[in-house]
């Protein structure tokens, strides 16, 4: 682990931390949060602040007057739109180009991240086991380790391993045996280096393999949201669907066949509304 942490530190190029998004989503997931606090967080990122102001002044909100106050803009937009805008800002950053070693084209990792975030938020809401905002963020960042894998592993090495894999290979075990670490572990370390909470880092670390004992609902939710995306083919590259779907995690969340159908169909409808290219 130390060597992985050290290797991540020594990388010349690593994506900028998505800290504002995380801080914002955690704040928005709280029942009692002031608009002043939201304004403070947004103002930490000038690009985000600009996007919020532009959106709040758009015709979609029927604004009779143009506001240049971030506080007014926050009030006008509401929680969910603020999260959407923050997530969209992340697209301009690291996630858009993640997963090249996994055979993903530009934007695919981003679409999968967003889809997983939507699914996780929905599961969090329906099960009432974790704050939807936290679920959203954890699922959005769950595969950030794939980005770092592009830097940690020699060009073509991971791609070759994935192409040559046996049909029933578990991708996590394959990555561990080939490189000594897997992308979920790398993602968790990266999250910690970004200064994200341990809760988020653990959800990223275990998103393909929730612990069997002492399970955390957030981990289970992110795991099942990831499975929903995989079955829809979102973010699926050379690794295919070669990750286990944990029946215990499903059981803890009460996700049977009916529920999986529900989340898959709802997610498809949501994505259709968000992005015609999806």
């Amino acid at each position, binding site marked *: 682990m130390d060597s992985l942490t050290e290797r991540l530190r020594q990388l010349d190029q690593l994506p900028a931390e998505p800290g504002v998004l995380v801080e914002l989503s955690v704040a928005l997931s709280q029942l009692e949060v002031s608009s002043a606090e939201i304004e403070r967080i947004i103002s930490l990122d000038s690009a985000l602040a600009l996007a919020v102001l532009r959106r709040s002044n758009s015709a979609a909100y029927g604004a009779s007057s143009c506001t240049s106050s971030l506080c007014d803009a926050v009030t006008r937009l509401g929680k*969910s739109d603020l999260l959407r805008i923050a997530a969209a800002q992340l697209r301009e950053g690291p996630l858009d180009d993640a997963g090249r070693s996994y055979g993903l084209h530009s934007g695919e990792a981003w679409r999968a991240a967003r889809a997983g975030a939507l699914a996780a938020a929905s599961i969090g*809401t329906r099960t009432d086991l974790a704050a939807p905002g936290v679920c959203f963020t954890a699922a959005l960042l769950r595969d950030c380790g794939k980005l770092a894998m592009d830097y940690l592993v020699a060009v073509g090495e991971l791609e070759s391993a994935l192409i040559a894999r046996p049909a029933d290979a578990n991708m996590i075990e394959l990555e561990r045996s080939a490189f000594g670490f897997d992308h979920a572990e790398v993602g968790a370390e990266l999250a910690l280096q970004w200064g994200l909470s341990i809760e988020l880092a653990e959800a990223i670390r275990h998103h393909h393999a929730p612990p069997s004992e002492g399970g955390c609902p957030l981990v289970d939710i992110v795991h099942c949201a990831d499975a929903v995306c995989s079955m829809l*083919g979102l973010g699926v590259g050379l690794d295919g669907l070669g990750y286990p779907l944990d029946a215990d995690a499903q059981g803890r969340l009460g996700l049977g066949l009916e529920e999986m159908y529900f989340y898959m169909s709802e997610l498809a409808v949501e994505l*259709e509304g968000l992005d015609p290219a999806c």
Partner: protein
Amino acid sequence: MEDDGTLRCDLLSECDDLLRRSDQETLGRAPKGHAHAGQTPLRWKLRESDGAGRGIENALSGRIPKSGLGRAGLEHRMLNSNKTTSKGVKLSVGIADMVVVKGCNQEIITHALGSCVGVTIFDPIAGVGGLLHYMLDRPRTEARASEHPVAMYATLGVPELFREAYKLGATKERMIVCAAGAAEMLGHGSALKIGKRNQVMLRKLLWKNDITLVAEDTGGSDARTMSLSMRSGAVDIHCRNSRSTLWTP
């Protein structure tokens, strides 16, 4: 499949007429909105004005959309004819989506089939072809069926795919049908067998309607990209950086 009995009952009640030409089509009456159907791809999408995309807002605010996303599949979205006839442009089919075309030389393609199934049909005489990308075998309730695109489900999407092809002059006897996808995740959780359910439902639908599935590449854990060449009718599968031909004349 533990609920095979249920699936069979659902099918039997409607399957006999699923893939037949309707009287209207037999008489040659042009269906509404098909004035240019001879050249124009038809595509099924959600209606834009139905509020799709509000799910996260509902989720974050503790509300889940009950209904009102609108029934897609009843609306035909015409693609820009200049775009569709330009050289090298592919017609891309998304999740829970379908395209039916006639008289073009383009390629219809759908990417990243996971547990979903891609179905291609091609009538070489009429020059009609189509591709459906469905994600589930059947709606679990009538209410769900009315809220979602018909292309989301095998039981609704496959009949619609054939019906629209008939409208463009295709016949069932000449139709070449191929399928790909239906992959599964690993582990005990994969007992849901959503991919398998999708595959089985397609086979049942085709079998009940005396249609042969000419070729298929299904199962396993690989994601697949499927394409239909309208020039030749060839169906190609792209999987793990390699391309193979599933069917060719």
